[in-house]
């Protein structure tokens, strides 16, 4: 595949991934937005009550108790709104660091940033079901195509989460290794049958039905890793789990 063609396929796959993730992200936004929405309504009601109490310029004991009650409610609201606004900011910055149209195509980056943005965007898929364990090493910044690498991490994380039928753990390990870095994404899910292990990087190979675009995740991951003159390997035991390891050089050739 030519470089141009690869970029095209990778961009299409990124769009497809983001498309399926939009619903999840919308849900993630829904929680803080719902809280702010409700609090805004409470603020309006509280203001109305305070204005009523102050309307006659006399505040009696009963009204004073009511004012105290309102102030307590407003206190709670401030705390929740702080949390909600923080959450919205984090989500937006994850989305931005995942997509990054403003950043040079080729750049020196801390790989953890991309991994974290992929995990954050996947929050909806993982929440309550899958625990993500981070075992991060001290890594140098590496020269890479960050947007494409984020796509690799996203695809591997999506695969890992889909391999876990109910509850489980995804472990992300990063290490410095042989003039490069290694990222391992391991799940304790279904595992891959030995007869399929050689075929999983083939374009279109999937065990999950035949929708268009299915079975491209690992093929694209390998293309991107190849473009970085890196390596992607897999080990898997059915019923125990799967680990993908991506090795990447510190400098591109």
């Amino acid at each position, binding site marked *: 595949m030519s470089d141009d063609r690869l970029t095209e396929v990778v961009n299409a796959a990124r769009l497809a991934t983001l498309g399926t993730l939009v619903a999840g992200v919308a849900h993630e936004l829904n929680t803080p937005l719902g809280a702010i929405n409700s609090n805004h309504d409470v603020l309006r009601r509280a203001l109305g009550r305070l204005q009523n109490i102050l309307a006659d310029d006399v505040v009696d004991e009963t009204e004073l108790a009511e004012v105290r009650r309102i102030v307590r409610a407003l206190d*709670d609201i401030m705390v929740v709104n702080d949390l909600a606004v923080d959450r919205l900011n984090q989500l937006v910055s994850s989305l931005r660091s995942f997509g990054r149209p403003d950043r040079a195509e080729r750049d020196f980056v801390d790989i953890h940033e991309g991994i974290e943005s992929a995990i954050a965007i996947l929050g909806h898929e993982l929440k309550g079901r899958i625990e993500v364990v981070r075992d991060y090493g001290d890594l140098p910044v590496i020269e890479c195509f960050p947007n494409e690498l984020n796509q690799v991490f996203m695809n591997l994380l999506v695969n890992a989460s889909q391999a876990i039928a109910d509850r489980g753990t995804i472990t992300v390990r990063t290490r410095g290794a042989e003039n490069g870095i290694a990222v391992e994404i391991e799940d304790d899910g279904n595992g891959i049958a030995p007869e399929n292990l050689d075929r999983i990087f083939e374009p279109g190979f999937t065990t999950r039905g035949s929708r268009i675009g299915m079975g491209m995740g690992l093929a694209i991951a390998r293309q991107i890793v190849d473009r970085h003159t890196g390596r992607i390997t897999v080990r898997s035991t059915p019923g125990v789990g799967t680990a993908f390891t991506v090795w990447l050089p510190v400098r591109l050739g």
Partner: protein
Amino acid sequence: MPENRSATVMLVDDEPMVATALRSFLELETAWRILTFSNPLRALDALRSHEVDVLVTDFMMPGLDGVMFLRQAREIQPLASRVLLTGYADKTNAIRAINEAGLYYYLQKPWDNEQLKMVIRNGIERTTLFRELDRRVAALDGAHRELHELRRKLIRTFL
């Protein structure tokens, strides 16, 4: 309509910001006693020791999914009205909740405070009526047993 002063409402959401926002609103607007939980297992424990009129819960929570939670809650307090408040506009799970957990109402996030208050108020009313009905039926049962006993005594004494 005067609020039922003794009513207890339990809110369960693994997102404390949601549970707290709901509590702020309900405490400001009503005299109901509000219990909030972010852990469904703790909420089940509390259900064993507190009489609850309405239970409002999210769908997916770490430790226990919403439908499982509502099913267990129904076993502990069958008369409490169960409301699902969720951002998952998922028909399959809504149907599951209605069929498997005897859901009273299904609300979607983001919610409308006024509607939420109305749903909870109606749920309290419903639970109160059910409890009253239970009490009346129990009283009738008692009276029936008493009559039976009197009849037995009468027969033994006079026949």
